[in-house]
């Protein structure tokens, strides 16, 4: 579904992402972890068109590197951001309407179907019922994250990229979020890439896990196997435990 071939991005002389290649299967939950500065968010920005580097990126066999962010959204790739910044002057529903309309308007790709019929259904699916009319600025972080996620879903994506969906949440909220993500994948068949720093969340919910280090793929594979790998342990825990 998504394929990266030799993707590289330099900031000055620093290679934030270096010759990265991987491929995503439809319906997969794919996790990305790695130490600070490994280039995780840069990978997201490259895929979603906010940054442009070298190498090739394909979505459904079509080359997408070089496209603008809105064009990539129109093809069916949605994303969230590490720190959610929804449209604060609008209500929850108005946020979603932007995604619902502009995620589809003027796009060139094939017609998209969504597993939900209308926004009301989407809202109840993510658990924002009763908060539709709230101005987003009055929401707490968890609900803001849900609003951003739901707006991204409203663009009818087939692939959704989640940047630290659980960060900054309480334990209970993180658990709820994780559950929601799993439902997105199982019930709606969405393909998911997630960056996460809570390792337990990744090992529990991902089909495959990519460990990034210094912008390079250290290991890709089944999560349990990956985190038991001495190389990964050295990278994440330290020499002593390797």
């Amino acid at each position, binding site marked *: 579904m998504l394929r990266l071939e030799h993707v590289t991005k330099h900031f*000055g002389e*620093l290679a934030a992402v270096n010759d990265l290649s991987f491929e995503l299967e439809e319906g997969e939950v794919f996790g990305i972890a*790695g*130490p*600070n*500065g*490994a280039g995780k968010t840069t990978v997201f920005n490259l895929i979603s068109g906010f940054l442009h580097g070298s190498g090739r990126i394909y979505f459904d066999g079509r080359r997408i590197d070089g496209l603008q962010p809105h064009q990539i959204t129109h093809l069916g790739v949605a994303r969230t951001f590490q*720190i959610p910044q929804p449209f604060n002057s609008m209500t929850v529903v108005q946020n979603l309407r932007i995604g619902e309309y502009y995620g589809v308007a003027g796009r060139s790709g094939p017609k998209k179907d969504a597993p939900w019929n209308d926004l009301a259904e989407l809202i109840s699916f993510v658990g924002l019922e009763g908060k539709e009319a709230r101005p987003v600025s009055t929401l*707490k*972080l968890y609900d*803001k994250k849900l609003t951003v996620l739901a707006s991204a879903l409203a663009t009818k994506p087939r692939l959704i990229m989640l940047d*630290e969906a659980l*960060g*900054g949440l309480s334990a209970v909220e993180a658990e709820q979020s994780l559950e929601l993500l799993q439902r997105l994948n199982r019930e709606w068949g969405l393909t998911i890439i997630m960056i996460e*720093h*809570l*390792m*337990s*969340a*990744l*090992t*529990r919910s991902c089909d495959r896990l990519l460990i990034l280090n*210094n912008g390079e793929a250290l290991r890709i594979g089944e999560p*349990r196997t990956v*985190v038991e790998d001495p190389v990964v*342990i*050295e*990278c*994440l*825990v*330290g*020499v*002593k*435990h390797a």
Partner: protein
Amino acid sequence: MLEVEGISTFYGEYQAIHDVSLEVADGKLVSIFGPNGHGKSTLLKTICGLMKPASGVIRFDGKEIQGLPSHKLVEMGIVLISEERHLFPEMSVMENLRLGAYAKNARKKEAENLDLVFGMFPKLKVLAKKPALTLSGGEARMLAIGRGLMSNGRFLAIDEPSFGLAPILRAEVFDQIVALKNKGMSILLVEQTTGDIAEQSDYIYLLEDGRIAFSGSKDEALHDSVVRKVFLGIT
């Protein structure tokens, strides 16, 4: 020397630090470990006055310091060596070092501390005239530490000194940090991974998702089951 009591820090409404308390006694090396993105850097920034805690108390030599501007803290002897380095890219290595000695009491000891830094990292002396942006990752890390030492602090907060260093250099840097401790400096150090420095630490905290997940002596803190849970997410 340094006591932190129940501080919480936010980015907007994003709570990065939840009610964290810790202590660094005089002349000790205390380490905080934890995976990335769990609030370690934010904790150090809060202690060193780059961020304001929403609640909680920070005491230095018994005096409350939370909320003071960073230049006041540097004057008091609290020095941060940042993981992001924050060097002055278009200035030479020498200028960066000299700016490290900006604070009044550091100025008096500028020459002395410069010798100390060049003794620790002879490479910096060779590079003295090069602009900081031309340095390699390892060299820049040395410069960041060197600049921190120029501030003549009594308390060093060091954020991931080994980040981006080759293993040999990493060992060297850790040796130097231990040497500093042996000279009587109090040090609070943050690392993503445990490794050798854990062995040298007087006390260890593990930080998970902005909270203290565990604290204790090195043997207690680095027990396999604790480490597997915090770092690898498996039990």
